[in-house]
């Protein structure tokens, strides 16, 4: 194991670490109370059923304790009274980048979003603090009946599709942070793909935090109707502030019979962000839900994407990469709930801990007794870079009955001194050698990401590894 320099050098995330002066027409102020919820409802002109939903959620949030009996004590450092829960400049999302306010447009240009849209995306939504600034979907998709709008527009304009599923995959009271999101949510995507339609190019949302002391609470609901297919990608960044920032999203996916839904995340939060996200999908008969997740950055990430396999032969998959640098804790994993016969789930998780970084895998697999022919495969591999790096694995696999097949493998490894010597003898600097070794470790998972993202991923990993050796 490498035991040289222990402190991880602070990485200049040159791409994401910048911010523009704030100019908010609407600011809910600091702290959270029923008045905050009413302020948000008024600004967004929410229908009554949403207002009611939010107020109930706030009560649930207040009644639930922090889950520190199993999760990290660092959660106690979140001060809900100094966070601002809603910030926007009051403009509506536009369909043209030319109409987006200059500083916001520049932000997304620096992050490469319009360029990616031109290159390979079928639609983009770009959210800046609480609201989307830009939202567009290719015309032909719109003609085919694809809906791709933000959540506010979704619940107002498409209530008949939105409402039956909203809060059904992840109920308000699922956990303290899903309740918080339900009370103050704003932004996020609502997507509906009609029966039989296979969307060939991905849709993408980009979530950008620009303001300090802020909480971003986007809410995403994606419904793939029978036999349809969709790949959705989300990216996120924030500038590095001295104060903590909270990002607490709720993402609900619904894959109807025979549908295939793939949700890809590349997160690159700055190290002051608490990222506490609830993500779950329902897969109906013979449907497939895949979460492909890469967690880099943040102070604390708690994220366990799940799939409820509700219909016969449904499939669920979570593929995740987590990289925890000094001052960071990636507490990630997967939940696979088998609720029908012959359902199949697969979890592959790889984590890298650098410096004092800590990676935790938490898995839950549930196969009840009355089912038959269910299968689960779980693999979790951890790579420790420095002697002060930490990893923990908590797999909970509950299988009842004897007509199922489950398999679980876990490993912890290190970049050996002999491997580094070999790579360096070929002319690679110590940092380059380490980053090649780490990229090798996650290589089979990186391939699951679309080309445009896998290149970005490799670069991000290289940046993170630069500080790991000295």
């Amino acid at each position, binding site marked *: 194991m490498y035991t040289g320099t222990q402190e991880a050098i602070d990485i200049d995330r040159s791409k994401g670490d910048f911010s523009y002066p704030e100019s908010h027409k609407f600011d809910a102020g600091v702290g959270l109370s029923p008045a905050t919820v009413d302020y948000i409802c008024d600004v967004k002109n929410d229908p009554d059923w949403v207002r009611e939903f939010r107020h109930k959620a706030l009560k649930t949030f207040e009644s639930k304790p922090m889950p520190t009996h199993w999760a990290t004590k660092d959660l106690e450092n979140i001060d809900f009274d100094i966070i601002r829960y809603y910030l926007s400049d009051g403009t509506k999302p536009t369909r043209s980048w030319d109409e987006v306010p200059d500083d916001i447009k520049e932000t997304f240009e620096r992050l490469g979003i319009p360029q990616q849209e031109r290159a390979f995306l079928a639609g983009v939504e770009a959210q800046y603090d609480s609201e989307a600034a830009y939202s567009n979907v290719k015309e032909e998709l719109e003609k085919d009946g694809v809906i791709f709008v933000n959540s506010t527009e979704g619940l107002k304009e498409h209530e008949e599709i939105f409402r039956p599923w909203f809060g059904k995959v992840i109920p308000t009271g699922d956990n303290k942070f899903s309740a918080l999101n339900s009370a103050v949510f704003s932004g996020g995507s609502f997507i509906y793909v009609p029966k039989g339609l296979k969307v060939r190019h991905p849709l993408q949302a980009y979530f950008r935090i620009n303001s300090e002391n802020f909480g971003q609470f986007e809410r995403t609901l994606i419904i793939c109707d029978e036999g349809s297919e969709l790949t959705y990608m989300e990216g996120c960044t924030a500038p590095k502030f001295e104060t903590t920032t909270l990002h607490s999203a709720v993402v609900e996916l619904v894959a109807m019979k025979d549908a295939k839904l793939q949700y890809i995340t590349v997160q690159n939060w700055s190290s002051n962000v608490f990222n506490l996200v609830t993500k779950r999908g329902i897969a109906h008969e013979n449907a497939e839900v895949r979460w492909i997740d890469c967690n880099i950055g943040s102070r604390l990430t708690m994220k366990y994407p799940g799939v409820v396999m509700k219909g016969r032969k449904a499939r669920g998959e979570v593929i995740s990469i987590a990289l925890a640098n000094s001052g960071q804790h990636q507490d990630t994993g997967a939940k696979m709930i088998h609720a029908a016969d012959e359902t199949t789930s697969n979890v592959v998780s790889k984590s890298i801990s650098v410096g004092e970084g800590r990676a935790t895998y938490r898995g839950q697999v549930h196969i009840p007794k009355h089912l038959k022919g269910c299968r689960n495969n779980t693999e979790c591999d951890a790579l420790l870079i420095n002697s002060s790096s930490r990893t923990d694995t908590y797999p909970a696999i509950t299988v009842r009955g004897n007509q199922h097949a489950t398999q679980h493998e876990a490993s912890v490894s290190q970049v050996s001194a002999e491997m580094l010597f070999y790579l360096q003898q*070929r*002319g690679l600097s110590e940092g380059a050698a380490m980053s090649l070794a780490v990229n090798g470790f996650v290589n089979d998972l990186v391939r699951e990401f679309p080309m445009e993202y896998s290149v970005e991923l490799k670069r991000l990993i290289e940046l993170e590894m630069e500080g790991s050796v000295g």
Partner: protein
Amino acid sequence: MSLVVKDLHAAIDGTEILKGLSLEVPKGEVHAIMGPNGSGKSTLSKVLAGHDDYEVTGGSVTMDGADLLELEIDERSRAGLFLAFQYPAEVPGVTMANFIRAARQARMPEGEELEAVSYYKDLYAKMDQLGIDRKFTGRAVNEGFSGGEKKRNEVLQMMMLDPVYCIMDETDSGLDIDALKVVADGVNSMRSPGRGFLVITHYQRLLDYIEPDHVHVLAAGQIVRSGGKELALELEARGYDFLKEEVVVAG
């Protein structure tokens, strides 16, 4: 211009392994080092490459006049020193093609990108020459390779990186006779007035195919005899034991 080792002393965990080793490998020559197990052959190759486990306690090493011991491991490599490992490490998930490409890229000036088409052309030509199946470009470095496949890949890397001084540590071990010939042909094709070789081996067999200009015998951390290629044959005939006696007499 040569690789010059002068009175080199080196220790691992406080135990001295090299005890005043001196050697000069000029460009254009092939020098063989032979010696019994435990004589310090592998230590010499690792010390020259800069392995952290070994502490140089005395002496000097220069490469074309520059102090080699001052340089980091990777700097020595980029300055032209190549070590073909006896036991090369596995690098899971990193393909041969990407590995060699990264090593070549490390030799490029900042901001310049390796040109992929000519790189692959060069790589395939050298793989063909060494009889390495092209599917190896997509395999993880040394993972699941047989002993012979590992050695061929070491020579492939040596050919691709175009070093000035090549140290080959027991490259013959684990090779059958056909593979040995192919590897030797590869090495011979690299012999040139601008390149020096230090071939470390336990057996004379390799030297039938890579004909050395000089042979040195290493015993107990020192060069105890040097001579022409006929010295290798003498060792083969008489074994290493007679040398031990000579060391005792000399001491």
